């Protein structure tokens, strides 16, 4: 079983994260935790000094964290983006697509199921922040570069 999953090179951040409120206050911390319903945009002025953003999923059906992640990546955040809380194997792929690159689920994941999920879909329809070329880009390679 996997308790922690990372797609980053090197060590994962060990720093304990602080709340958005204390972070945007006076904290020197470089790790912050966003709760569902908190505005990821509040962190945009501080992206340079952040090395870890944890996004909490209180229930896997609460999809607000997907938008939070994508907003941070769209704004250029390059540090670790970790999904924590009720994260199940069937959510790893969409989470990856929204920019998460590490996972610390409440309940450990089955290694084999993770492997299967990661390789299930060779193609995707949307351009997001994970760098995967959507199907429409593959269909028109002469027009869409990259």
């Amino acid at each position, binding site marked *: 079983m996997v308790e922690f999953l990372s797609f980053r090179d090197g060590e994962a951040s060990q720093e304990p994260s602080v709340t958005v409120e204390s972070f945007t206050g006076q904290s020197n911390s470089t790790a912050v935790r966003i709760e569902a319903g908190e*505005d990821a945009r509040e962190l945009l002025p501080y992206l340079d000094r952040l090395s870890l953003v944890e996004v909490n999923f209180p229930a*896997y*059906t*609460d*999809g*607000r964290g*997907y*938008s*939070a992640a*994508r907003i941070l990546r*769209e704004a250029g955040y390059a540090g670790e983006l970790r999904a924590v809380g009720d994260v*199940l194997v*069937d959510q790893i*792929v*969409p*989470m990856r*697509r*929204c920019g998460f690159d590490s996972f610390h689920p409440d309940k450990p994941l089955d290694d084999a199921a993770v492997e*299967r999920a990661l390789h*299930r*879909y*060779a*193609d*995707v*329809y*949307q*351009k*997001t922040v994970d760098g995967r070329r*959507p*199907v*429409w*880009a*593959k*269909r*028109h390679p002469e*027009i*869409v570069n990259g």
Partner: protein
Amino acid sequence: MYRYDSYDQSIVDARVEEFRDQVQRRLAGHLTEDQFKPLRLMNGLYLQLHAYMLRIAIPYGTLSARQMRKLGEVARKYDRGYGHFTTRTNIQFNWIKLADAPDILAELATVEMHAIQTSGNCIRNISSDQYAGVAADEVTDPRPWAELLRQWSTFHPEFTYLPRKFKICVIATAEDRSAMRLHDIGLKLVKRGDEIGAEVYAGGGMGRTPMVGPQIRDFVPEDEVIPYLEACLRVYNRYGRRDNKFKARIKILVHELGVEEYKRQVEEEFAQMKVLGLNPPREELDRIRPFFANPAYEQGLSDEIDRGDPAFALWVDRQVATHRQPGYAIVNISLKPVGGIPGDASADQIDLIADLAEHYSLDELRVTHAQNLVLPHVKKADLYAIWQKLDEAGLAEANLDLIGDIIACPGLDYCSLANARSIPLAQKLSERFASPDRQKDLGELKLKISGCINACGHHHAGHIGILGVDRKGVENFQLLLGGSGAEDASLGQITGPGFSEDGVVDAIEKVTDIYLAERAQGERFLDTYRRIGMKPFKEAIYG
């Protein structure tokens, strides 16, 4: 019609295998029902009153003969010989075994069909106009856009766990045959100069709190439509209510924020998103468009129809609509026989309609939100032959948009959410008003029945609507008047205290009597209601 390329096919095939894996994990006890339920729902598999129900997507209501035949095969092989066409232009099978579901999806994948996102809090099947491509007044064909949106919304990673389900509709005519403004987002394609773009409406819907969607943009150009929709969805995903299932649809967000504030937030988000290259290049829409190009119509055909057979002439007048190609017509097939179950079709009927589509309609058919079917490209010279075959199969009812053309959800006979049975009431009403002369005299009269507040039977949008409720364990029916899902969209008003099943049939007869007594020249029921108001109807019913 659109055909999958290897990318589309591999995505659908992968989904089948993923679901097979999930079903195996469930049957082996590795997934609890709580874990499995959202996964099966994302593949359209519900647990209903009597068994599992599988809802199969019919993207923008379009089917080929081969696909229709496959549905007939599923009905025979895995169900009990019939299917139910829904108000979302999908089809449901009521008697599915869990272990069979992956095999059914695998069979569907061979004809480029799936059940992806036919349930769950995600973007559902895109709806469109059943006359798309053949309507005379259309600005452009909405189907290429609908296909583009189908692909974009399939497994959209950010919008898979929205606060609630999300329905999008695309039309391209002034006349609205698809209840566009009762969708979470409605797109109406329009022309500005030489450019095609979309008027956008947001926050429409039925259910517990019905709303007609207000316009939030008068024009989104073709190459910005995806980022604009993503902005709409993102604002909803972040701020839509998650504390109360009944207040979680986008209509509540738009209503609570106010249209102007919702628009402002969408525009702010859109300004950030439109520079991210999210929209496919124009060449992608150009790639899709030829799939929907005009089929090879024969030229120089006659517009003559031999109306010698009176029953046939009656059917032609009611069920056949104008096609933009000379010599051709659009045929509406009623799935509303007198005393029948609205939207149900037997496997034999499904096969017959597949054959008719193949031989007489250039291999194409459509499903309408009123639970009927359409053969979009029929030579006028073939109408009589088609009518005879339909008549033999009990499919030649001539009641399009008349009181007998009742929309009804499955209700408490099948659905675990329902409070009352919709179908027996639809049957009684269609029998009460069975006379063709009487129906014709009453004219356009859209009667819509829902068995619960979720409004799958579109009761708010009925000229006459009926809502089934549970009154201390007994079925009770509320009556609504004055709704419309068309371009003159409006929401029906409740007449007053509810009725028993027989009581509501009598009440509707009184309502139609008032209409007949009060109508001015050329007025439909809805027009008379709008002119004279609720009072005379109320007096007749309760007085």
